[in-house]
């Protein structure tokens, strides 16, 4: 599984293809995607059947990590964080003063392609990279040390992770509804203001602010629970994706909701490009009139899809508690099982952005080749043009589609195994666990179908 993820990680993504183009979408429509979808759904359904037959403790054993070496104190983290902050400052400056083309200016390339598309995936698949490059923690520590002033305020714990939930929804709205989220001018303001506000919050409230309110760190830490590398018993440890979710402490309700919202938002990011959604909005899918025409609809869709997902998740849990006879309060069950949603969200993230990474990643390489636009040719790419040729041949489109589908299916398989292991913890016996988990498992099988359908659907954006 990790090998599969690693392969996926080496690739990358992109959504926008011209309406007058057959291109990638045209080839996807020629693929036997109904067969692929059936195979993917069957794989996930088979996983459900298999775990019903597994001996008790087998799933838990699967997630047991192997310890590697003693964990050293991360002395350099503040240094790398400060360097990261300096680089962010450089990017914001380039956003304000550099080229206005979002494929040339490094700010949109690094915010959207490197950070949002690639780093989130690396964090979720490999390990906690964000802890090293968080551009706030180092400068906050440095300022506190130089000034000798400790955080004067105490972060109100009753707020939980709700500020991060709200911020993430706002981020989703910016990503999907804003007419120009890649505009360097606009992005430099958004990024710069957010960084300053976060730094200020950290100085006022201390590290609790970063890990509870700061959206980026909260989602990175959440996805970090899915990574293969982590720590256990004072050592670096390696395990199958999801082992850290099982090994770690339970999550509070607000963080559990965020985990579900990660999937809901990721799902809507796919839905809102489909012919199906555009026709629902009364638009001609071959003549998309532009984002600015549908800002309220997009925001409403984002909220509604998240509410629908939370409701469906709750309904499955409620039914499961009754079928299994455990009858825990819904909030307890929600907190217990929400981490099992994370691998699905991560699988979606990888699948949805794979094509964008493949294209925009080339622009990042082109920038690295000549960071200051003076013909440096550091990587020898000066004479290489950005290509989308892999969207124009059947075998490459099939490989890309199957990789995306593989990410979706793998995410659901891990989710089902993880949910089973979590269910076994409280259940009196395996029968009770399997029964209690049945509605959620059925939901995940259905969600596999939905995810693969999304990948196979014609898109109008």
């Amino acid at each position, binding site marked *: 599984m990790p090998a599969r993820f690693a392969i996926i990680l080496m690739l990358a993504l992109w959504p*926008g*293809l*011209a*309406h*007058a*183009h*057959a*291109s990638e*979408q*045209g*080839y*996807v*429509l*020629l693929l036997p995607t109904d067969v692929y979808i059936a195979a993917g759904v069957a794989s996930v359904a088979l996983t459900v059947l298999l775990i019903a037959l597994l001996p008790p403790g087998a799933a838990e054993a699967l997630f047991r990590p192997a310890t590697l070496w003693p964990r050293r104190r991360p002395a350099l983290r503040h240094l790398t964080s400060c360097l990261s902050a300096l680089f962010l400052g450089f990017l914001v400056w380039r956003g304000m003063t550099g*080229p*206005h*083309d*979002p*494929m*040339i200016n490094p700010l949109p390339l690094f915010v959207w392609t490197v950070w949002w598309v690639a780093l989130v995936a690396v964090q979720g698949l490999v390990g906690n990279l964000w802890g090293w490059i968080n551009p706030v923690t180092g400068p906050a520590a440095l300022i506190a040390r130089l000034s000798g002033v400790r955080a004067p305020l105490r972060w109100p714990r009753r707020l939980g992770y709700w500020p991060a939930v709200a911020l993430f929804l706002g981020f989703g709205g910016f990503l999907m509804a804003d*007419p*120009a989220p*890649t*505009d360097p001018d606009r992005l430099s303001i958004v990024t710069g203001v957010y960084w300053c506000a976060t730094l200020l919050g950290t100085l006022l409230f201390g590290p609790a602010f970063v890990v509870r309110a700061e959206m980026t760190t909260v989602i990175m830490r959440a996805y970090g629970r899915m990574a293969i590398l982590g720590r256990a018993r004072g050592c670096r440890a390696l395990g199958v994706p999801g082992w850290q979710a099982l090994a770690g402490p339970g999550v509070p309700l607000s963080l559990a909701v965020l985990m579900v919202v990660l999937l809901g938002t990721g799902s809507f990011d796919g839905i809102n490009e489909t*012919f199906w959604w*555009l*026709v629902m909005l009364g638009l*001609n*899918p*071959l*003549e*998309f*009139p*532009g*984002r*600015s*025409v549908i800002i309220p609809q997009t925001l409403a869709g984002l909220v509604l899809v998240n509410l629908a997902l939370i409701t469906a998740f709750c309904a499955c849990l409620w039914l499961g508690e009754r079928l299994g006879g455990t009858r825990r309060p819904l909030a307890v069950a929600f907190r217990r099982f929400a981490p099992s949603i994370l691998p699905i969200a991560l699988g979606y993230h990888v699948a949805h952005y794979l094509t964008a990474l493949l294209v925009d990643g080339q622009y990042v390489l082109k920038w690295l080749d000549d960071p200051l636009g003076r013909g440096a040719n550091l990587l020898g790419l000066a*004479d*290489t*043009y*950005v*290509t*989308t*040729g*892999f969207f*124009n*041949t*059947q075998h*490459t489109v099939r490989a890309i589609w199957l990789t995306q589908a593989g990410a979706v299916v793998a995410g659901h398989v891990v989710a089902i195994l993880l949910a089973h292991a979590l269910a076994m913890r409280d259940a009196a016996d395996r029968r009770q666990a399997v029964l209690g988990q049945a509605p959620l498992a059925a939901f995940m099988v259905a969600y596999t179908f939905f995810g693969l359908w999304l990948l196979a659907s*014609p*898109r*109008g*954006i």
Partner: protein
Amino acid sequence: MTKPIKTTTRRGALKTLAGGAAGAATLPLWARYGQAQSAEPIRIGFQVHRTGIGAAYGRWYDRTTQAAVKLINEEGGINGRMVEIVAEDDGTDPKRGAEVVEKFATQHNCDVGYGTLFSHVVVGSAPRAGELKLPYFVVSEGHHVASGMLNRYTLQPGITDVKSQVQAMAPFITGNLGKKVTMVFPDYGFGYDHRDNLGPAIEASGGEVIAKIAIPPSETSFTKYFPKIPRETEVLYHVMVGPAVLTFVKELGEFFGPARPEIFGFIDSLEAVDIASPGLEFLDGTYMWEGMPRHAQEDQSEFDRFYRGKVGVDARGASVSDPTDVSTYAHMFGCWETLFVIKAGMEAADYRGPDDRAALIEAVEAMTEMEHSRQHPQGAKLFNGKTHQVFGPQFISRVEDGFLRKVHTTSIEDTLYPDEVDYTTQPF
């Protein structure tokens, strides 16, 4: 080269300008280049579809633009000044497009706006360009410029419009393929442009459109529409676009088998798609309109060869660094030619800065014939200063074993139609 009208009397500014341009041209190249490097650059605001539905076109429009500007600068720039492209992404969004035009005029000190492809973005942006008095050179193929719905500041001097393209196809179709034509088109504006313009032209050339089959835009399977094609159809004219085009071709092949009518389509359906792709075998022997032949022909002009070399496109219309990366060859020449029209216009108007914008418009309006040349590699052109629209040759190619072989080149006269507007009567 672009020729200003020499006889015009209502444009006094031109006279002085012709002298200025001639003066600049007499300077040795090194001297012009030296001056160019020291002066403030000419800023061309490039409204590019970087994101949104136009992104695939935008990438090639950008590549062509960069190549043309590099060449212009290597040859001394415009009026001794380097050209700087200020690219802004409009998200293929009309409202955003208008904002971008405003940024060109008010923030970036651009001399002109340029490069817009998608019609709805042009229509959304042009009024703002008119209000801000920013010359706005579009490369969109739309009939909206020549129809009179835009304004004096909006021009389309580098690419022909769809109305002239469609009507120029009719004589070839009725003369060579058949008289009884059935049209299959998407059921919205783009399809209606073809429906409304082809029918009268087919009738004028002695043919008849016997059926018009409109396909809902959200359709992804077409078999249920094919039985509506009348049996007596001699020519099937299709202009399908969107992700389901390959499915359309495949299902059409399955429906007809070897006993098919003649088939005529527009390359727009398969722009940037390799015509030799598996699944497109059915297109063998069918005909396509091309704005510029994608595959280098036996009689390839030196100008086409030169243009391909500069843009980095091989003999099959694909990127020289990736033969699977097929370009939008039928359209992107419009960027190249438009930039050379801007250059010629600025030189004719002795353009010095934003105060000369009206003179620039007048200089372009005064243009008529443009020779087939490095600046106009697609072919000779005729510019209509009243309608702000250029006219030029159209090409018809036959698909032969994965090769688009040019079988007919229309005359410019085939593409002309009566003027629908006279922008020169509008005040600046």
